[in-house]
């Protein structure tokens, strides 16, 4: 905004100078800022004073010493070893890892489902597109907390372990959780997994280059003969070299409990389901509007060039739509991470839930809340930093 200080009469008289000082843009701006900073400082000082008075009067300890004291509460879902004799700090770590794990899986499954639903929403078949619309509307127009409670209640209504349902061979569904076959995990499996990841990462630029060349030469772009070995080669080589144990640890139904296999608790399953479904609805809308925002002329031009529908989608429309989709996708990932804090309502030990137990036991609410707010801020910053990096990449590549 242009400054108008110079336009005002700068009289030589003392009154004129005073007026310039009071009404001038610069001095008025400084005054406003001083007032704002002063108010914030005053408020902060007042709150700090009150808080330290209150804490002293109620004999509540301050500081973060409590983190090294034994937590003495049980956590059922954990990714790292934890015993009640471990410290509050360790319990907090378990909570943070649970939050990150469930948010990551929810974003992953939500994205896969959301992209599929978003594309199917544009199907020319009204039955299919209306069905997808119903899916999206049902999930978007009911509160997430209600959805979580509903899924949790539904899982608890499943039969007891003795009469567990068996939807697939080796999979048991009971009110005690989901039992699934897992591999006898070892370091060899980890290396094969990493090799697969490397293969997938290598395949993207490879496929891009092959298609680019083929299109430039006017040949049909067929990249799978090169991509398939690039993806599957490294893990196959790793598997041959390391010989991982490929037998499955299958859950077995005993008289009272299921032994072996992997167990997903009802709390984890309900939370993951709820978060993934609700984020998929949001992502579907983002994908649909992104694709629709690509102008009709692009479809027609691609058709005129003789591109097939699937190729038009992949080579012409999606790269342009991606630019529009990424920003809303970022905010959906961010809110999914934050929404994982609703875990506390169904008793999944996430960051907030562990912090809540901690502050009930120690009374150190300020420290516990400060820690989990700081961790959420950090997670939000990391997620948006990653998505901004991806966004910049997409924007550049599809110039």
């Amino acid at each position, binding site marked *: *905004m*242009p400054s108008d200080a110079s336009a005002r009469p700068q009289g030589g008289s003392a009154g004129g100078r005073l007026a310039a000082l009071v009404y001038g843009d610069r001095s008025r701006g400084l005054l*406003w*800022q001083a007032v*704002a*900073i002063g108010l*914030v400082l005053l408020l902060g000082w007042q709150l700090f004073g*009150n*808080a330290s*008075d*209150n804490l002293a*009067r109620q004999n509540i300890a301050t500081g973060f010493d409590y983190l090294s004291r034994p937590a003495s509460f049980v956590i059922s879902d954990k990714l790292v070893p934890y015993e009640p004799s471990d410290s509050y700090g360790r319990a907090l770590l378990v909570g943070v890892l649970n939050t990150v794990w469930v948010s990551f899986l929810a974003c992953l499954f939500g994205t896969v489902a959301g*992209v599929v639903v978003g*594309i*199917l929403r*544009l*199907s*020319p*078949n*009204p*039955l*299919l*597109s209306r*069905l997808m619309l119903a899916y999206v*509307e*049902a999930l*978007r*127009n*009911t*509160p*997430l*907390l*209600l959805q979580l*409670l*509903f899924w949790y*209640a539904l899982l608890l*209504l499943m039969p007891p372990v003795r009469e567990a349902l068996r939807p697939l061979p080796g999979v048991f569904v009971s009110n005690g959780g989901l039992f699934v076959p897992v591999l006898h995990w070892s370091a060899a499996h980890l290396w094969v997994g990493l090799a697969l990841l490397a293969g997938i990462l290598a395949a993207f630029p490879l496929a891009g280059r092959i298609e680019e060349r083929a299109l430039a030469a006017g040949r049909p772009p067929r990249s799978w003969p090169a991509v398939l070995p690039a993806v599957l080669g490294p893990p196959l080589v790793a598997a041959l070299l390391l010989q991982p144990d490929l037998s499955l640890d299958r859950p077995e139904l005993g008289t009272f409990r299921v032994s072996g296999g992997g167990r997903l608790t009802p709390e984890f399953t309900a939370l993951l389901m709820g978060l993934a479904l609700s984020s998929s609805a949001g992502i579907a809308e983002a994908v649909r509007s992104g*694709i*629709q925002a690509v102008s*009709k002329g692009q*479809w027609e031009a691609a*058709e005129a060039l003789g591109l097939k*529908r*699937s190729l*038009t*989608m*992949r080579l012409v429309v*999606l790269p342009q739509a991606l630019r529009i989709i990424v920003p809303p996708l970022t905010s959906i990932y961010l809110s999914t991470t*934050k929404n994982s*804090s*609703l875990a506390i309502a169904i008793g999944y030990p996430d960051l*907030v839930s562990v912090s809540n137990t901690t*502050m009930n036991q120690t009374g150190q609410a300020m420290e516990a*809340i400060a820690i*989990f*707010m700081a961790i*959420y*801020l950090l997670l*939000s*910053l990391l997620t948006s930093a990653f998505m901004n990096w991806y966004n910049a990449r997409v924007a550049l590549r599809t110039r």
Partner: protein
Amino acid sequence: MPVSRFGPAEALAAPLAPPAARGRLAQIRATYFGTPRNAVVSLFCLALIVLAGQATAEWLLLDAVWAGGPEACKAGEGACWPFLAEKLRFAVFGFFPYEQQWRPGVAMLLLLAMCAATMLPALWRRELLLGWVLALLAMYLLMAGGILGLVPVPTSQWGGLPLTLMLAVVGFGAGFPLGVALALGRRSRLPAIRTLCTAYIELIRGVPLISLLFMASVMLPLFLPEGWTIDKVLRAQVAIILFAAAYIAEVVRGGLQGIDKGQYEAATAVGLGYWQNMILVILPQALRIVIPPMVTLFIGFFQDTTLVTIVGLFDFLSSIRAAQRDPSWQGIAVLEGYAFAAVVFFVFCWTMARYSRWLEARFDVGHK
């Protein structure tokens, strides 16, 4: 990225298609069974719809228990209607004293009437704002009592749907001016003000609402001088207002960015100061643009108010959960309660979403 077999509808309306018979039946056949793949998709969808419809009808009507008590429902297979019949009033009004429940009822109707009136652009006048102030005051007096011979009811007994609606509407209404101020602050050219506003907005948007509710319920009492107490409902309301303000600020900022630079310059050229410029020229245009996204934001907030359950308030969802935990009904009608809540929320949110879309279409006409 999955390779799509389906493109936008308009792209598929093939202009080169032969001029087939234009009969209704032929049209339907082309739409649903035009190609073998399309036919498979149609049949699959039909099967899914029929199965889902059948399951719903069985649960809701055919197998449902229509009369009797908890025992009948326990024995039955389908939905338990007696539960809803018995607990409906409790679910809607919570622990508000039974013989006084007409008061939140009237307050809720008043609020809904005001919302309906606000949805009509023809009524967007200064008088509407005055109407809102009076209506909210009347609602508060009706609920709290203590005058005109109404028995005082402490806020700890407020609950149910009126509380949910109140938390959302007051939270958004009070958060709005704060949000506009924050948005202006974030675009201010005074660095200190800009930094403060940006920090506030990003801080609030970076943490979950639950953490603010926890702060309000656990930490706020610690921050107050000795002897001061704040009501539990008011505490949650303050948290919701502060939360809403940050999100509203971002939407308003989007609107401010959409205003042509020439508008600022023209206003400055005719000698308007900063506040005159904002109040008379910029904000009226910016706020108009952001009304549809604001409605979408409100839908989100309306749903988020259910989180007050976690800090122990008796909103609509908590009342339903309390009804489910009634010893005589415990574990019998869990899904029924949630399904009822879902239907109520769906009706509210879906209506607002349709309204937002209608508004958007209406505004579009004026600009293009």
